[in-house]
């Protein structure tokens, strides 16, 4: 490792612009003649749109147009799609209710757009929107999942009788039943995984610019995956063909999954830009973010785990209801199925697993992937079950886990996943040592003397990242391949541009990706730049989510680097009159090994572009590209232990210590990895203690602002104690597993396990608000 190579704690290159206010986000972009869009949104959770009268609005100053859902239909703009086909246990395809970008007829959640005002300024558009008179006929609404599947419940979509999207199963039910029939002990648990609002710092935004002469669209948008946006917008929505649509995702202020999806607003902006002949900008506000950004989680699960007399798990059965909201968002169908149930084996050797997942429509905001996406729900369930089992079986929770850890790899679980490597005991050892697990009983006793209830909670998570082998996900219903692409351009003077299909919206790719180049070529990272987020510049890409950018995106860069280096070595060998096999790359030079003969990278690059003296038959230039398709998922795993105190008078939780021992494989930049873990842990703690997107019985959102929706603040969380135990991922040449989601996946179970340990009652739902904890303590 050089000072800027792999493993170095290099300060982030991108931070200078972010911390000096020089970032360039969508809303910073202003185009000549730009108009502003303001969406008219349904105040009702379920209603017929009887009439939209925009006559008064159209006469108001600065108003360019008022466009409605019916006009989208008239222009044959396609409905939003869901890109992962799930098949129910009866063999039928999932039931898709039509989701038009603006509703021409029926609205199914508060905040659904029905029309848009285009005006010279945002304020004028908003003024005019208030003058648009909409006549609604309210329909009965249902927000609660269990209410939605009851007979006689209000029905959302004619395509989905009983509001059921699918009833999907995985695993061997017969084997599970056989295991339960011979179980020495059975542990049962009901858990709710609370609905979350993603709340990226930057709200979603879009600017669409239609060039009438070229019949070409440019879309600036807050996307984690601009190429996928272009693909979906052109292939399904009938707005623009791919070669006439450029999608740019400039600096993006956080995504957490919510900016993977293609939303109505960017579709409408594109379409409206052509209709009005001017650029159209839409910038969402925080209320719109709460109402329309895809929410996360929202599961209700009953699970039973069977143990033999030696406390070995012999079977697991799970039944989960997953709330999808009013419509199926882009990747929503995969989250509670292939991203959730395939991880139900956790870190444990479980010979038989069966899970049933029932997807439900409700009159709420659509739900899709949110940091972790299915894996936090699985990890939370398994780790709550393990803690419950330890209490019921009266064994130490850490020991119960050790008794059941998978220790031989590769390990084929009964739910598709084949774990490639790991050392779960090592992570747990590290976490227990860091928190002084053995000393806990004494600390608990001392806290008790001070009137505080102290608890400790373990969570041993595993996740599947590096999404994903294209062939495998294709066989499971995915509509896209999940490889990544990259290009390496060595310029004639030796500076290097890396073009990547990954997209950085906080991850620090502009630093970490340069570190790979520094490692391989021995050049400073200042000589390297990263190009991403523009479909006109980068050949293709699947974007950033699922902790995939290092394991998949960086490996694609490595593949392109290897090709470039191979050609550069040929040029160097030719110039140095040496054998190609004797050329090594060190400190930015191509050297003949064992001699002092060398040629610097800029001279090799210049030779490639002058082409005055290249090996016979070689093409000029020094630029290579590669696609990389992983052979397996990667499996980051780790052990989190949380120690906390509960104030019995108020139910308030205070952290004493939080230790995280993660196995992410090779780390490119440990400082950035720590930042990712910190952020993930805070989101996991936020889910456990604070965050909950709530609707009333009529589908009205109760938590549509930060006055009601509790986001974690710095003083809500402890200072974290992090460490790493490493097994290299055998599936990619860099040995990387991924670190973006781990904290959010593992933290919430550790917190709830610790609180329930503290208060001596096992049943406690998230978020464990002081009120809820206090009531649980004092419940009869």
């Amino acid at each position: 490792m050089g000072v800027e190579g792999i493993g170095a704690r290099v300060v982030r290159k991108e931070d200078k612009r972010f911390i000096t206010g020089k970032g360039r986000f969508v809303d910073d972009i202003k185009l000549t003649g730009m108009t502003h869009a303001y969406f008219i949104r349904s105040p009702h959770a379920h209603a017929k749109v009887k009439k939209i009268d925009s006559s008064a609005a159209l006469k108001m100053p600065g108003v360019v147009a008022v466009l409605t859902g019916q006009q989208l239909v008239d222009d044959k703009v396609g409905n939003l799609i869901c890109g992962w086909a799930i098949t129910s246990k009866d063999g039928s395809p999932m039931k898709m209710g039509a989701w038009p970008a603006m509703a021409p007829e029926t609205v199914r959640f508060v905040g659904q757009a029905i029309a848009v005002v285009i005006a010279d300024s945002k304020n004028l558009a908003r003024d005019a929107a208030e003058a648009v008179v909409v006549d609604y006929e309210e329909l009965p609404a249902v927000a609660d999942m269990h209410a939605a599947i009851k007979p006689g419940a209000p029905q959302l979509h004619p395509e989905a009788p009983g509001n059921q999207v699918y009833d999907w199963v995985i695993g061997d039910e017969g084997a599970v039943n056989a295991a339960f029939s011979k179980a020495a002990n059975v542990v049962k648990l009901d858990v709710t995984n609370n609905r979350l609002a993603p709340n990226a710092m930057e709200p979603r935004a879009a600017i669409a610019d239609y060039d009438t002469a070229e019949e070409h669209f440019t879309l600036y948008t807050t996307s984690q995956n601009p190429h996928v946006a272009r693909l979906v917008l052109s292939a399904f929505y009938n707005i623009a063909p791919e070669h006439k649509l450029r999608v740019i995702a400039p600096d993006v202020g956080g995504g957490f999954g919510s900016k993977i999806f293609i939303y109505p607003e960017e579709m409408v902006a594109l379409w409206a830009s052509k209709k009005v002949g001017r650029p159209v900008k839409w910038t969402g506000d925080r209320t719109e973010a709460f109402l329309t950004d895809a929410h996360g989680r929202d599961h209700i699960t009953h699970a039973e785990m069977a143990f033999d007399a030696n406390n070995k798990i012999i079977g697991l059965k799970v039944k989960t209801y997953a709330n999808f909201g009013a419509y199926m968002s882009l990747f929503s169908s995969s989250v509670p199925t292939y991203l959730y149930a395939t991880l139900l084996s956790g870190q444990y050797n479980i010979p038989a697993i069966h899970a049933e997942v029932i997807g439900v429509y409700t009159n709420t905001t659509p739900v899709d992937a949110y940091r972790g996406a299915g894996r936090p729900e699985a990890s939370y369930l398994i780790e709550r079950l393990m803690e419950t089992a330890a209490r019921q079986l009266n064994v130490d929770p850490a020991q119960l886990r050790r008794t059941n850890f998978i220790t031989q790899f590769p390990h084929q679980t009964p739910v598709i996943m084949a774990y490639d490597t790991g050392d779960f005991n090592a992570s747990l050892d590290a976490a227990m040592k860091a928190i002084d697990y053995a000393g806990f009983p004494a600390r608990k006793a001392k806290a008790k003397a001070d009137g505080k209830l102290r608890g400790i909670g373990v969570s041993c998570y595993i996740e599947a990242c590096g999404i994903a082998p294209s062939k495998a996900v294709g066989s499971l219903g995915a509509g896209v391949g999940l490889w990544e692409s990259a290009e390496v351009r060595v310029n004639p003077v030796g500076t290097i541009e890396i073009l990547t299909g990954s997209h950085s919206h906080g991850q620090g790719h502009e630093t970490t990706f340069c570190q790979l180049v520094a490692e391989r070529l021995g050049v400073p990272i200042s000589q390297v730049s990263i190009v991403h987020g523009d479909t006109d510049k980068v050949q293709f890409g699947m974007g950033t989510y699922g902790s995939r950018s290092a394991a998949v995106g960086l490996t694609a860069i490595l593949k392109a680097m290897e090709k470039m280096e191979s050609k550069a070595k040929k040029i160097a060998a030719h110039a140095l009159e040496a054998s190609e096999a004797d050329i090594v790359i060190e400190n930015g030079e191509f050297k003949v090994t064992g001699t002092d003969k060398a040629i610097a990278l800029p001279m090799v690059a210049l030779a490639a572009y002058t082409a005055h003296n290249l090996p016979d038959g070689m093409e000029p230039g020094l630029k290579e590209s590669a696609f990389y398709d992983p052979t397996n998922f990667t499996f980051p795993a780790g052990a989190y232990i949380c120690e906390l105190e509960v104030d019995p008078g108020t139910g308030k939780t205070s952290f004493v210590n939080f230790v995280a021992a993660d196995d992410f494989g090779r780390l490119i930049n440990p400082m950035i990895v720590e930042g990712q873990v910190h952020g993930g842990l805070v989101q996991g703690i936020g889910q456990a203690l604070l965050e909950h997107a709530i609707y009333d019985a009529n589908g009205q959102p109760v938590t549509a602002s930060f006055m009601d929706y509790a986001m974690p603040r710095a003083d809500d969380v402890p200072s974290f104690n992090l460490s790493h135990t490493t097994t290299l991922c055998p599936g990619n040449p860099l040995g990387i597993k991924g670190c973006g989601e781990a904290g959010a996946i593992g933290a919430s179970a550790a917190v709830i396990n610790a609180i329930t340990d503290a208060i001596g009652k096992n049943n406690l739902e998230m978020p464990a608000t002081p009120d809820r904890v206090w009531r649980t303590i004092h419940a009869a």
Partner: protein
Amino acid sequence: MYQTTYHRASSVDEAVSLFAKGSESKFLAGGQTLLPVMKQRLAGPSDVIDLGRIKELQGVELSGDTLTIKAATTYYDIMTNADVKKAIPAIAYLTSVLGDPAVRYRGTIGGSIANNDPAADFPAALLALGATVKTNKRSIAADDFFQGLFTTALEDGEIITAVSFPVPAKAGYEKMRHPASRFALTGVFVAQTKSGEVRVAATGASQTGVMRVGAIEAALKANWSPSAIDSVSISANGLLADIHGTAEYRANLIKVMAQRAVAAAR
């Protein structure tokens, strides 16, 4: 935000006359409530009259047993004021846990009590300390000033100029913060006057806004100690209930916060 006309008044008299000229005028103090509400288009005053730069509304005075805080003094200036810290440290503490630094630099005591948010901190201090609200027209006892949710004795166009607090023998404030808004989920201010009277006020708890808590006052009058409150029973009837706190929980918090406020009182 709807269009509005902004005026910066340089005196109370000018503010009064500007207010009268507008068709639907609003006074602006620190803007911590009015401005967010205007940005959300939930309020659309024709004229906004800024009181924040009026010199006669700024500052703190300690005279004998009376601490006077002028209406447009910011929380930060109250929190850091030597006279406040010396005379009524519980007010300095209350201000230090009010909102966040941005709020404390802008928000004012006058703005807080004029708005009378049922979860605001200052109304509890005024009520428990038996403060007097001074306006450009009259003096109003705190007991008469707060009249329910977002409702006060202020008449249209009346301006709070100062709040005067009798310096107590002891006073303390504790609150449970609302997890999202950081207002008081429930906060309790306890005070013992120099003549031995006990006054206790709870904010964030009642459906009718800040309130005295007679049962706790009686218990503390008999015995000024946290344990005196152990046997007090607080009814959940009439208390606020929302996603962050049931009425029963708030009833419990009134007791627990009162006990902690007594323990912290000085």
